[in-house]
């Protein structure tokens, strides 16, 4: 029966080529635009560490002075050196890492390559196991190396390709900022999107090229890259005691109970700092988990969201357009349908026949929409934004595109098909 309906549908579609083309085009444009924007939105609002993000938390403390205080104000988005070190040493979480961004001058071992500046991450070693960073060669530095100014470095896949042609470079020496570092590990390609662990250096920026122990980098006074917020007016020049927040501190807490206990710990810590006269404000702590932190920072660009909603509105107009055209098309065939009804076809089978026709339009429109979405994403990738390279259609979005196209067109076909199968057969035959 389906094959027969399909045959009827194709015949009917061929009869009005212009109208069919218009319907297919409208569906394809609507689907193409909404799937392009939806894919970008999907990529940008995705979970950077699926399965792990629920156990990662970002503690926020408020060590600022009373000046400029507003009631209900959120705590700073980063921690000071002193707080970060205190929390790190307290070690109350399952894992914890203190980190910041930087830039180092790399002198390649191959003298033919000019020296270049590379974005660096200065961090303590739990960064790697906590964020599940995959290693290609070697391993992270040890916990002891966090505290002894060890001149060790972990390279990203990209930098290892550039400097050593992708060979196992562990054990070799790399000169950075005029100092020699021993390579202990090389990562597999790793680019969490968003760049969740440090939103100060770009929401969707690429991962850093080199990773150094935090203490080593700060003791060598390697350049800092990020945002630094200071309070008070002391002429303090030492970043380790200055009243500034400039580091990110992440903890892993495996159960909600541990998270609640950790929040209590932060509260007690703030209270204690205040009683010792270090803090001036009352405890003001927060402990968002990873996704809450991304949400709070509104990392998904508002332009991308706006584009998605406008594209969706566009799709609705295209569907309304298709409903109208299909209505006209089906009702125009009242005579033919009347004959079929008179020859014994039930209302149900007329309805099914017309929906098959609508579905065929949807399928072709969906394929067109898919091609348009691929072209649209190609255009997005040509943009200069940080997230441009991420805009790819994955299998789930591909399936969603086709599903959306067919379901939307079937939906658009419902009203016209229903109206058409209400046609009384006798009347149609008589007027003919």
């Amino acid at each position, binding site marked *: 029966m389906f094959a027969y309906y399909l045959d009827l549908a194709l015949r009917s579609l061929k009869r009005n080529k212009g109208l069919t083309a218009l319907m297919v085009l*409208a569906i394809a444009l609507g689907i193409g635009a909404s799937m392009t924007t939806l894919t970008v939105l999907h990529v940008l609002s995705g979970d950077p560490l699926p399965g792990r993000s629920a156990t990662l938390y970002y503690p926020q403390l408020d060590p600022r002075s009373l000046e400029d205080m507003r009631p209900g104000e959120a705590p700073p988005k980063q921690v000071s050196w002193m707080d970060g070190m205190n929390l790190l040493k307290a070690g109350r979480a399952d894992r914890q890492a203190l980190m910041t961004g930087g830039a180092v001058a790399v002198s390649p071992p191959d003298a033919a390559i000019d020296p270049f500046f590379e974005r660096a991450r200065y961090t303590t070693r739990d960064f790697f196991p906590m964020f599940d960073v995959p290693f290609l060669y070697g391993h992270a530095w040890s916990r002891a190396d966090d505290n002894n100014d060890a001149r060790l470095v972990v390279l990203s896949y990209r930098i290892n390709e550039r400097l050593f042609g992708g060979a196992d470079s562990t054990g070799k020496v790399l000169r950075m900022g005029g100092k020699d570092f021993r390579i202990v590990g090389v990562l597999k390609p790793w680019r969490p999107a968003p760049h969740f662990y440090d939103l100060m250096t770009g929401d969707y920026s690429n991962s850093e090229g080199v990773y150094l122990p935090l203490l080593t980098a700060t003791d060598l006074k390697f350049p800092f890259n990020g945002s630094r917020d200071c309070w008070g007016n002391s002429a303090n020049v030492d*970043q380790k005691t200055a009243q500034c927040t400039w580091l990110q501190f992440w903890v892993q807490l495996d159960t909600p109970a541990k998270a609640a206990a950790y929040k209590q710990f932060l509260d007690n810590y703030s209270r204690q700092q205040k009683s010792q006269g270090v803090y001036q404000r009352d405890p003001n702590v927060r402990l968002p988990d990873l996704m809450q932190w991304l949400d709070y920072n509104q990392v998904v660009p508002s332009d991308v969201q706006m584009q998605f909603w406008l594209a969706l509105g566009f799709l609705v*107009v295209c569907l309304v357009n298709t409903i109208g055209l299909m209505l*006209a098309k089906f009702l*125009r065939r009242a005579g033919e349908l009347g004959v079929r009804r008179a020859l014994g076809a039930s209302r149900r089978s007329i309805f099914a026949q017309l929906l098959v026709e609508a579905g065929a339009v949807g399928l072709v429109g969906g394929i067109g929409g898919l091609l348009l979405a691929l072209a649209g994403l190609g255009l997005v990738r040509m*943009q*200069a*934004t940080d997230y441009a390279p991420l805009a790819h259609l994955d299998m789930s979005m591909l399936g969603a595109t086709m599903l959306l196209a067919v379901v939307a067109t079937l939906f658009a076909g419902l009203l016209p098909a229903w109206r058409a199968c209400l046609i009384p057969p006798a009347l149609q035959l008589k007027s003919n």
Partner: protein
Amino acid sequence: MNLQVKPIFSALRHHKAGTLLIALQIALTLAIVCNALFIIQQRISLLTRPSGVDEAHLIRVMNGWVGASDKDVGPLMQSDLDTLRRLPGVVDAYATNATPLSGGGWATGMHSKPDGKGKRVQTAIYFSDAHTLDTLGLKLVAGRNFHASEVQGFLPNDTLQPPQIIVTRALADNLFSDGHAVGKVVYLGKKPSTIIGVVARLQVPWVASWASNWEGNSTLVPRQMLTNGTNYVIRVRDGQLQKVLHSAPAALLAADRMRVIPDDQGVVTFEQMRAKAYKSDRGMAILMGVICTVLLAITAAGIVGLTSFWVGQRRKQIGVRRALGATRHDILGYFLTENLLIGIAGVAIGGALAVGMNQWLMHAFEMQRLSWPWIAGGVVVLLLLGQAAVLAPALRASNVPPVVATRSV
């Protein structure tokens, strides 16, 4: 025409679904097109803002020294600047932390009283020297330039409280409503800074919306940031831009090899910086333009399709009317009026939808309020579009001969 309204309504009652669909499509199209055009207008007004500097003659070179500590930087920077200023085709040059359109820099609060008290305005900080006004082509509207003796080095952890500063007119107007800022004292920290000069305009480094409320509030400080990385800004003579784009980095590398000038964005003109800074705004405007065009085309095509169907369906009635004495003109007028009535219903709903959509965009995306002329313009465009779309099927209808009335099919 008036006589025809009544039969039109009774005819439309027989095509409720089709009528509603056209009206709905017009309404949705109007709502989207109004808001999209409004977004385009806003983005265009953003990207045509002047930066205040002589963009056509400016080049920025990013420079990092390899293995130099902060205390070595002062002499290195001075010798680089001497090299650049001596180059043929170069008018002047200076070193800074940031420039307009660069998208990165230093922002802070400036206060009318010490220790963060009194009136506060947000400002961008540009590190400058006595050559800055000349290099950027800034117009001094009051006061004087920095003296070379006032320019000092600044280490990354120093506190910024220079005794002399130059501010933009926008910043001066924000702080002092009487229009006389020169000689007045403001505070970046504990110590006072005296405003010695006022320049006409200098945009902050950020073009994004979060900085749009204070995008003209800039402060020049007579300081040279002594860090490993710096930006050289070079002003060139007419027609020398391409030459200096190559000669400047070459001269710097010839003077000292122990430096890094990034391959990507290391040497750029201000025109390239402007294109990059506003790329997403331009992209958004183009995308909205494409969406509007396609949407209007689809709506027009939909109207053509549905009206053609109605004309086909009513051939016999048209023939009867023609046989009873209606002229071609009457038939044409009938379909045009019919479309106009549907269109008016559509734009009435669409106007309300446009306002509602704008309210939601304002709430969700901090967009501005849509003004009435935009909606009025959209209404006119859609009504004209409807009339144009219906013209071809209506002309076909008016060509139906009266003899059709006598045929049975």
